[in-house]
């Protein structure tokens, strides 16, 4: 997905003046930052349904398909707008090679959650831990994401 966004982004990054692209990206970043901090809310595109459990048992590639659909967000919920912001940043302002780093980072971030959940305990307590920490963690992650993208553009 990062590659597709980077390839699509070649056109606006070549044709649209940088200050215009920075302005659009900055406005989007502020909107998403406020959303993640709970200042306002707006819907983001999402395929709001879960991957059926039977997909895991489809021949030998079922587990891979399940992981792909869930990991990439193709068939799952999107509780955060940060992935949408990163995708738009790749189209508008992120240099082509860095798009792959962003894609790798997204995969690692997605992977961290089930790993931490499994390591925490096997009684489902992670969900309660996340629910308690969410109000603090979401703004920190939003500041991290927006700050990193800002520094990337300014450098």
């Amino acid at each position, binding site marked *: 997905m990062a590659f597709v966004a980077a390839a699509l982004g070649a056109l606006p990054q070549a044709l649209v003046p940088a200050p215009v692209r920075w302005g659009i990206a900055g406005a989007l970043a502020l909107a998403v930052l406020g959303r993640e901090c709970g200042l306002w809310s707006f819907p983001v595109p999402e395929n709001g349904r879960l991957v059926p459990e039977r997909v895991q048992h489809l021949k030998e590639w079922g587990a891979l398909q399940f992981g792909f659909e869930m990991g990439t967000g193709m068939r799952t919920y999107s509780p955060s707008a940060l*992935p949408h912001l990163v995708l738009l940043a790749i189209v508008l302002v992120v240099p082509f090679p860095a798009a792959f780093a962003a894609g790798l980072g997204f995969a690692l971030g997605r992977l*961290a959650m089930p790993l931490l959940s499994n390591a925490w305990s096997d009684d489902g307590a992670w969900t309660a831990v996340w629910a308690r920490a969410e109000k603090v963690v979401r703004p920190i992650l939003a500041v*991290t*994401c927006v700050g990193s993208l800002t520094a990337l553009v300014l*450098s």
Partner: protein
Amino acid sequence: MRARWALHPLTVSVVLLLVGGLGAVSALVTTRDLAAAGAVLLLALVAGAAAGFANSGST
């Protein structure tokens, strides 16, 4: 005994924030091309990781 604080979502988010801050400082102050390119890749990696972690919710 497992150090559960290291597995806490707050720990992960603070680590990402610190690494992002380090990358930002490196990207903005370095004068060497290679270091600047590395810092840009690191910043993109951190931005993506923060988005991926935030998007995972509780699962």
